[in-house]
């Protein structure tokens, strides 16, 4: 070997060294070794722990009601972003000096980042599998067909992987920008808060944030999970539950006879029109009777007489019909709460996936560009 090395002296400038693609495998091998030796494997039990905690909270709500679905989807988005960010936030800055040295010895930055992309993709894939498995174990039911694949669980898995991977690439970029792990870990909370606040799904934001929201990973992330969970067709439970909780509360109202009669004659109110349509005997309906009573001189003479009624919320609900009220509150409000962005269509899911893939590409490219300037670091 030493002779080989010595013989090649004169024509050394013609010698070809490993190119960009070949270098990717050198670094990928190194990273896989680091997975074992540098305790990178710890991200997997950490992902399981987080998934378990979140799964226990969302298991009875996700895919059940609108509010539960949105809250569950948001929680899963945050789990994925958290996992992705913490996979790579320190990986570049902790070995910045080593990268500088290797860059000077012929390492290509693009090879290094591409190796990271492959390695982090594997890591995110494993974390997604762990997260789905754990949430399944604690009782989250990913049942039914998916919009893109035949199984909802596979569609959900792809989305969760892309969310984690896009976040991973964002953190990789921050890591390549940071000169030390302390700096990277200082920036990290701001990134998480930014993603949390500007996702645009959980809290109403002022109009000026409209241009910022699409720049967050959490925005397409929440949209894709809400779409896949069929958010728009889920009922709203909050109002009915609130009403149910108040069923023993007493309510009283003072109305004049005239007001009561006018109310009972309102045909445009669905309850009253149904009530009026009820047949008493033969062709006589409640409406006919009420109209007759309202026109009678006795009632006309006492239109201004006031009467106070006292009842409970439950009593009123029973009077109208509990099923009717429940149906109105759950489905009527749900219909009004539907969001076009969460419409259960394949096009929506594909669009959000593409947006997440775009984030991956952009952040990886930014990482390469940023690290190309590593030689300019101050000594």
């Amino acid at each position, binding site marked *: 070997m030493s002779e080989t090395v010595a013989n090649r002296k004169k024509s050394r400038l013609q010698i070809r060294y*490993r190119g960009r693609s070949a270098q990717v495998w050198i670094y990928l091998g*190194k990273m896989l*070794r680091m997975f074992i030796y*540098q305790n990178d494997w710890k991200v997997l039990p950490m992902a399981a722990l987080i998934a378990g905690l979140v799964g226990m909270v969302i298991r009875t709500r996700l895919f059940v009601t609108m509010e539960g679905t949105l809250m569950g989807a948001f929680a899963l988005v945050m789990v994925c972003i958290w996992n992705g960010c913490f996979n790579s936030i320190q990986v570049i800055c902790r070995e910045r000096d*080593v990268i500088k040295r290797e860059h000077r010895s012929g390492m290509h930055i693009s090879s290094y980042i591409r190796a990271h992309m492959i390695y982090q993709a594997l890591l995110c894939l494993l974390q997604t599998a762990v997260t789905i498995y754990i949430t399944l174990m604690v009782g989250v039911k990913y049942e039914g067909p998916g919009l893109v694949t035949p199984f909802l669980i596979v569609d959900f898995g792809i989305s969760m992987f892309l969310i984690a991977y896009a976040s991973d690439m964002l953190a990789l970029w921050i890591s390549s920008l940071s000169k030390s792990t302390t700096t990277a870990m200082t920036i990290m909370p701001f990134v998480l808060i930014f993603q949390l606040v500007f996702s645009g799904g959980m809290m109403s934001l002022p109009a000026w944030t409209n241009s910022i929201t699409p720049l967050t990973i959490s925005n397409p992330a929440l949209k894709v999970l809400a779409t896949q969970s069929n958010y728009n067709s889920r009922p709203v439970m909050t109002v009915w539950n609130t009403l149910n909780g108040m069923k023993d509360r007493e309510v009283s109202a003072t109305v004049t006879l005239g007001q009561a009669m006018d109310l009972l004659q309102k045909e445009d109110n669905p309850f009253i029109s149904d009530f009026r349509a009820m047949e008493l005997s033969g062709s006589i309906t409640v409406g006919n009777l009420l109209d007759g009573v309202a026109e009678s001189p006795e009632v006309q003479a006492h239109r201004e007489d006031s009467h106070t009624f006292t009842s409970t919320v439950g009593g009123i609900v029973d009077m109208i019909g509990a099923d009717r009220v429940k149906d109105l509150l759950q489905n009527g409000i749900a219909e009004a709460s539907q969001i076009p962005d969460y419409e259960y269509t394949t096009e929506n899911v594909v669009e959000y996936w593409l947006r997440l893939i775009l984030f991956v590409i952009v952040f990886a490219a930014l990482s390469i560009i940023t690290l190309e300037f590593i030689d300019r670091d101050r*000594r």
Partner: protein
Amino acid sequence: MILNILLSAFFGGTDSFTIVTSLLYMVGLWKMFEKSGVRGWWAFVPGAREYQLSRCAGRESEGRGWSITAVAMTVSAVVSQIVVPTSNSEYVSATDIVMMTVDLALAVTQLVFAIRVYSGLIEVYGVRRRWMWLWVLPTSCIVACVWGFSKKFQPAWKVEDIRAEMARLASHGSATVMDEGLTVNLEERSATEFFQKKVLLRDIHMAIPQGHMVLLLGGSGAGKTTYLNAINGYEKAKAEVMLNGNNMYTQYRKMQYEVGFVPQTEMMRGKDTVLNTLLDAAKLRLPKEVTPAQRRDRVNEVMEIFGLLPVQNNLVEKLSGGQKKRLSISMEFISNPSLFILDEPDSGLDGVMARELFEQLRKIADTGKIVIVITHTPDRVIDLFDDVIVLAKDSARTGRLAFYGSIEDARKFFGRDRMEEIVKAVNRREEGGDGLADEFVMKYAEVQHV
């Protein structure tokens, strides 16, 4: 509106109190700048005056931060004049909240930088630390005027007129390019920091034959590492560097495999094994056509040379200081480079281990390679070196060549036996040296011309 914007940009506010105090502050700084040898009109340039004040205080890095935040504050003041509140709501608008948050963050940052710079000024003017309160409080305009106009307040030193000094000390020469060996003809290596050009190295010419082991000497900040980075093409200078007839700069991508640079600190992954570290280094540095078996042989050969075979399966972080140094050298040696550069390879090693390491380097040089070494304890291994390069920081704070030649010639030239005494001779007085750098730089330039 336009007048308000201009006033905000220049004085940081539009009210008469702000304008008057700012004006007084600028006038005071103008006189202070003149006392420190800085052009007075900088005092009237927002953003730049903070940096110039930091130069007077000898706190340039803090001054850069202060300047940037000052510019940001000026921009913020201008924006606040342009952005008219549109909301009549009883609540503060989101834009106002953002502006207030940014202003607060900038104000705190600016205060921190300002305190650091004022602290430096207090040291330079040799006054009591309680003056700091007057600088930080809105009384700064009065302090600036007092320090600027009063003859009682004088700075301990002036910001040097670097250009004049450089002109005085400029010397020109050239080394003849050799077919075999390293030829350096460096005219200038400069860096721009905060719009200001700094000459780090100037006029260094030398030809080092193959097989020579060269000691690179110089005090702290003399530009030793900058010089090494310049000759291997990593940080390009205005220079021509030829290694065995090939230009290091124009053919850098291919020539980088001809140079082995061992950094001062062990830049290696602690959680990888010695064997894997070397195998990866071999994959990166050896030609594509080398087979895995040949690569493994070369790694074994290098591990044997540097005594790493017994620890080949150990994690790097578990190695001793000496073993880490040897591994770091092995990583570069694996590609058998023609030029081998080592930045303080003996730091952290005891005398015996350091001696062993340098003996190994001597053997490498004896195989026909050029070995250049920086060390701060040269005398214990000086017998192993052929030549010495002495770099010195001249009065313009530029790294200059004070000597290049054999060890014996160096002793005669400086009139000192020990290398550490030579370093002391060229070091600046404030660094504990004899402050003879300019003298030796001129003397060496004369010797070269003769």
